[in-house]
């Protein structure tokens, strides 16, 4: 019963946040709508027993990623009016039609093509201990690869940030 109430309230909040994100003219409102969606999803993670994932969701997504987004919005400037004129012919109707089709398809698949749980075992509790046990034994190699990925991302970002117009290769300055 509690779960149903939470699902209705925070499910509506998540969808509302997503709609605010794609409809708001101001990118700051878009970022805040996305933040609302992420907080709502963290609630679902707690309800599903994924406590560690919920904490990571709040810290990484709602904290770090959204702060980064807001910084870039401030850097780029929020007062610039976005030109909403669609330049591609037929883009809007085609996009809406395809979205409706795709949405109906995955809704149908998600509601019907569903596996039944094996009986007798309880749902996994996603504490840091259980996650760490799986992560550092069975999934150690993928975990180490994420370290490599993060290093590559950090180096690439620094390289992009250090780019100046002057040191571009010839012919690229426009």
């Amino acid at each position, binding site marked *: 019963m509690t779960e149903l109430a939470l699902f209705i309230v925070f499910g509506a909040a998540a969808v509302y946040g*997503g709609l605010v994100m794609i409809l708001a003219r101001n990118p700051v409102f878009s970022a805040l709508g996305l933040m609302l969606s992420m907080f709502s999803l963290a609630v679902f993670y707690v309800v599903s027993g994924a406590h560690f994932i919920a904490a990571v969701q709040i810290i990484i997504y709602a904290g770090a990623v959204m702060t980064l987004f807001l910084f870039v919005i401030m850097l780029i400037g929020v007062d610039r009016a976005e030109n909403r004129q*669609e330049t591609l012919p037929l883009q809007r109707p085609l996009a809406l039609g395809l979205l409706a089709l795709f949405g109906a398809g995955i809704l149908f698949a998600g509601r019907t093509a569903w596996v039944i749980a094996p009986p007798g075992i309880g749902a996994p509790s996603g504490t840091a201990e259980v996650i760490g046990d799986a992560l550092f034994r069975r999934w150690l190699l993928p975990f180490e690869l994420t370290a490599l990925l993060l290093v590559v991302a950090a180096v690439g970002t620094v390289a992009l940030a250090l780019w100046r117009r002057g040191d571009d290769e010839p012919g690229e300055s426009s």
Partner: protein
Amino acid sequence: MVTPGWYMALGAVLFVTGMAGILLRRNALVMFMSVELMLNAVNLTFVAAGRELRVIEGQISVLFVMVVAAAEVVVGLAIIVAVFRRRGTASVDALADLRG
């Protein structure tokens, strides 16, 4: 008790919302946020599936998706800022240099 099918349905709705943002908006930042929303929708289905199948791997997958998303956000935003410094706009319509 909410069945996992409902979580799947919510994930589908959020995913389509993010896709609509990609297809309909022209601001590179908002398009990027839409990608994040799509990744989050898939994370929700991962957690719901892991809970239903009684395995922890659903949550492990979510952790990896989060790491990849964080790396992607950092690089993507750096590219957006670099494009903005060069062009003075964050609209993807302005990037039409390859148009024939």
